[in-house]
């Protein structure tokens, strides 16, 4: 039993009743996302650029939020890039996609792709050893074999560490 702020008492066997909330959504992708996802299927990272301020956007959308003009130019960037920030997820996290708890650890990172220095792509790193992770390290997108690609973000398995001559 627990006493409430208003003095009433509540029986703990009536505390919670589980009520599942299950909604399924089908998401319209539109021209911009579609182009991006089709690119992934072909093993390419395609993004767009603001004709006014030159800013890139990942994922691409229809308008530059700062200049409020329509995004135009498409360009292929990566697959190599530089780690801008990273973190290792060690606390088990509920994954609404499974649904269930996701296996840990895994490393997620913001990566500046070659060809788009002003924006990051958010994805996973192969490396899970904290001592080997560094801001500024060079990485490369590893795509699934062509036949297994679905036109989703998961077509990139992760980014793996690459060593490049200085």
């Amino acid at each position, binding site marked *: 039993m627990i006493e409430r702020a208003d003095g009433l008492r*509540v029986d703990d066997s009536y505390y919670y009743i589980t009520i599942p909330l299950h909604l399924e959504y089908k998401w319209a992708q539109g021209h911009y996302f579609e182009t991006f996802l089709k690119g992934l299927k072909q093993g390419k990272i395609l993004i767009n650029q603001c004709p006014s301020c030159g800013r890139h956007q990942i994922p691409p959308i229809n308008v530059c939020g700062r200049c409020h003009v329509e995004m135009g130019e498409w360009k292929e960037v990566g697959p190599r890039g530089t780690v801008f*920030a990273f973190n290792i997820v060690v606390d088990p996290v509920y994954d*609404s996609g499974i649904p269930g708890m996701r296996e840990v650890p895994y490393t997620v990172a*913001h990566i500046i792709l070659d060809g788009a220095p002003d924006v990051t792509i958010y994805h996973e790193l192969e490396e899970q050893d904290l001592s080997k992770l560094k801001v500024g390290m060079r990485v490369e997108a590893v795509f699934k074999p062509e036949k297994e690609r679905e036109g989703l973000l*998961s077509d990139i398995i992760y980014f793996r560490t690459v060593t490049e001559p200085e």
Partner: protein
Amino acid sequence: MKERVAIIGIGQTKQSYLKPEVNAEEMVNEAVRKAIEDARLSMKDIDAVVSGNIEFLEGHYQADCQFADGFGAWMKPGLAIQTGGCTGGSLVVAGTMLAASGLFNKVLVIGWQKMDATPFTGAINTTREPIYDRHLNVGAAAFLAARGIRYMEETGCPEEIASLSRALVSEGASRNPYTHINRRLTAEEVMKSRVIVWPVRFYHLAPTSCGAAALVLANESEAKKAVKKPVWIKDLVVVHRETSVYRGGAVEVSSSPDAVEKAATTLFKRNGIVNPRKEIDVWETYSPSSWYDMFDMERRHIAEKGQAWRLIEKELTRFDREIPWNPSGGVVCSNPIGASGMLRVLQAALQIRGEAGGHQVPKEVRLAQADAYGGTHWSEFFLLSKYLS
């Protein structure tokens, strides 16, 4: 000329991880009744009810309608607002607008969240783009971690500072009976708490909380008739950001304007505040992690860029020292999301009234800054004042 608006009634529930003894409507009702009572009014004196939470986290569709009776909205005008983490701030903005419109004398504003209804990280993940990054399942901690790492890299701030900052706010929190985590913590204890996403530790993060807050706002003529001394909402500033800042990374690569900084700068400039560190008597800020405290002090011009961690190092930010930084304990001690932004305003108002209790700062509070933060760096800033002019 804007009609001036004041806070004349204050109510909040105890905030906690679970609130099994009440349902959402009952929980909100407690805060509502306290606010009405505090203003020495009855429900029939209220002209409109503004309410909000992040409804998708609990599953209630049109929660304002669903709980209209408990909210006291029955047969009254009103509206519901939802702007994510800054919902609490947006609600106070909406309440202020209504009270200043000339059509409503007294407006009841309600913010609430009952997070025991849902697995939190799974729910907060629905704030992510479903195709682009929802599968990464990182919740809010990852953004904060990335920020923290950058701050250490750029300023030389030692890892322990965030833990010290957390310990300093716990001094106030331990004296605030309403806050969720009101344990007094040492920096060592915080450092020993488990790593969520390095360098973010358990105690660095805003907890998952249930709770409700309610305020009664009144226009100038009504406020002057109020039983308790009104707390004036001297000014407010709303600055939102486009979403692509976050889609392209919570960490922004190119130097880009900062919404929090713009809101703070605008607010201070408009009100002739030249030296915020000296002129603002209390800060109640929506800093969602101890790793944000340094940024947030710098963005509010309390310290130069890269220098705020030194104020924390000198322990100047404790509730009874020079810069009372979140004397209530702030968002890291309690985070019922839809109420959090409002609780900042509420706590600042209590400080101005001198009714904060154990965490009352030991000086006259004339001016207080409170704010809400959420979404993709959205900010709602308030300047509260003891005196009308």
